């Protein structure tokens, strides 16, 4: 089963996404801050990461940068999900290596799922040589 890691400190929408994604048959892991996120990512090795930017302590960008340095998460599709509609955020995310960028208030759960599927399909061959698909 494919694993999705959701990193967000705000529970309201976090829980909603978790519900929806589970309905699609994926396994959902959650982290509420950057530290937790890094630990879980290294041990559980998710197939896709949904990362919130506005978090206490280590903010989303710092976490993203770290992810791109770690071997386990260097190539993982990372989608920045945030409440901020600012273009500078999107651009910066691009620079730091985010795969895509979504705005919480604009995306429906259905659209989120569609995006996830899109990036999971594009996932390269896994370590044991088989192409993991849905």
């Amino acid at each position, binding site marked *: 089963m494919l694993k999705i890691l959701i990193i967000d400190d705000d529970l309201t929408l976090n829980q*909603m996404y978790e519900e929806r994604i589970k*309905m699609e048959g994926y396994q959902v892991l959650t982290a509420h801050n950057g530290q937790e996120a890094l630990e879980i990512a290294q041990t559980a090795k998710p197939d896709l990461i949904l990362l919130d930017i506005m978090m206490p302590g280590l903010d989303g960008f710092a976490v993203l940068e770290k992810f791109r340095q770690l071997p386990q998460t260097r190539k993982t599709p990372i989608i920045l999900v945030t409440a901020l509609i600012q*273009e500078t955020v999107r*651009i910066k995310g691009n620079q730091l290596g985010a795969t895509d960028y979504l705005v919480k208030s604009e995306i429906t759960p259905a659209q989120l799922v569609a995006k996830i599927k899109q990036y999971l399909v594009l996932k390269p061959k896994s370590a044991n040589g088989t192409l993991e698909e849905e």
Partner: protein
Amino acid sequence: MLDYRSILTFLMGLLISGLSLVIFLKSRRRAIHIIYGIFVLLVAIWSFSLGFYYLSSDLETALIWAKFVYFFGSLIPTFFLLFSFGFPDETTRFPWGKTIVLLIPNLLLLYLYFWTDLMIEKIQFFTFENDRIFVLGPFYWAFEIQFLSYFAWTYNIIARKWFSTKGRLHAQLSYILIGTLIGTILALSTNVVMPDFLNNSRFVWLGPELTIIWVVAIAYAIVAHRLFDIRIIIRRTVVYSGLLIFALATYSIVVFIFAQLFGPDGQVFTSRSFVTNLIAALAIAVGFEPLRKWLTQTTDKFLFKGEYDPQTVIQQLAQSLSSVLDLDEALDTMMQLTVKNMRLAHAATVVIRPHLLLSAESKATAPEYDVHRIKQVGYKNPSLMTLDGNDIVIKYFTQLRQLVVAEELSQAISTYQGQSIETQILDRLNKFKIAVAIPLVVKDRVIGIVMFGEKLSGDPFLEQDLKLLQIISTNTAGAIEKARLYEEDQLKSEFVSIASHELLTPTAAIEGYLSMILDEKLVKVDEKARDYLTRVYQSARRLSQLVKDLLSVSRIEAGRIVIDRQPTQLERVVDQVVNDLLFLAKGRGVTILWNKPKKPLPLAFIDQEKLIQVLINLVSNGIKYNRAKGTIQITTTAMNKSIAIEVSDTGMGMTKEEISHLFEKFYRTQSATNAAIQGTGLGLYISKKLIELMGGEITVTSVVGQGSKFTVIVPQTKEANKRLITGDPNLMSPDQKEIYGR
């Protein structure tokens, strides 16, 4: 003979040649400079020729030089005429055609001068003054005609140009016109009019000296970067000449009277004493003003030690306040500056704001103002100063609006047995050790009070001190207001952003969960519940759309939108928009016809996200305001430097009046409101602003009852922007780098 005439004319010749060289070197390429250079050179050669004429010892050489003088003299108006044609054009093309044509009369004269005696017959001695005179030949008038007609033509041209121009060019022409008129008229009178018509050649040597005025005026006009106002120069000349004449006249009269009364001979007007008088008068006239200034300054230094210069203080204050937006910093700066320069004991400023009535308070008892800030400089014990909105000082100054000097107040009280309020105010001012208090007024509102302690020297405040303090307080009032507005603006933007985001999160949750409930594949819902929940969902969508629109408008108006333009394939953008809205269209029975072009469109240079937002707005409008079973057509056309996207619908259409208000905030047409279609009235306002920020435009045409057509024009990607695709920072322009944060 080597006399003063030959020396002077040679000197003039040298000076003028020097000038010619300077002008020529300044800009060798411009035709007008070359012509001017030649013109000036001719004046110099003419001057030299005149010098040689005076110098020559026999009549034969004198004759030849005389001929040269006339010949070169006749070339001068030719080149000046050429100059007047060309000025002020900056071309490098030399007007050969015109030159040759205009030179024809000169060449004719050349022949007449040197190969015949028709112009100047000979030179002969004029024994009366041991001098020589010209004997002019019968064709002399040819010279006069050429000379004077060329000049007349030139004056005409310059005068016409002067009348029809403004600004800097007009100023330049003023110099040229005045210089020319003075110089040429004077020189013509000594060198042509007097000799020819009055038979007086004695002042011919003055010619070059007088033409210098002419030559220099023009040089200044064409070379000077910033011209002096010619009126100032005229005024100065008049003033100095007047002074000179006055001094001379006074001196002469005094001397004359003295001589008559006391002297035996009355022989006071020898040329030597005249010259010394002249020099003395000149020295006095010129030296008086600077001497006066210097003496004043020096004595001031001794008598008024420790005086400040009001100009400097104001300038420093204005400079420092102009760059400060923070309230505390502004007040601090102002007070430090004033206290230091005027050597005061201390200063304090109170900033007040209108009191906001709380529901628990009654209007009768609540104070009118609140104290927003108190800042103090130089106080040993700052906490002594406590004021609130109810303080009598605040009440007093918000009504009085005038400067108050504590000493004067105390005098007034003792003289007139002042009323209790003045005594109370004085008590307060004395408590805080304030000598002068000035209310700060902006647009008829009192926004604070600035208070100054006494002078360290113990001296009283003089009229000029109070004037300066008044100016300082006016400037401070302005700075405080500026800081306040800036603060408010910052808060507002933050507030709206935060509020909007706080509103958007729960609405996103509501919409999200509802969409999941209403998804039959996921959740089973009872018919009635589904019906109600659908309506809830629609309201939630409406609410979130409104909040998003308000946020967009707030960001647009605060200038917070960042446009990230990239070369974009428009077909894909339209594809996405159509895809997103297919569901909505189907729900209303509207068909979207996307006329995708067969040949790929050139890349547009736009912000994709924003364009999608705009097109979704236009197409969804087209769907919403359409008739049943209506259609929407989307077409794209590539033009020269831009691409047009047309969205036309078969909807209700709009009148010209409605179109004129269409892009205003919250505007909805009557028919739209009547048809009870949901809309915020902000969509088109936002769309227009976003497209304009991308360097494009939106226009609309419509026929009532038939439909509307919205045209969005976006710019194409230019070569320069294509490099953006690589994202290589070395290929980016500075503002592209800014956007990308590199």
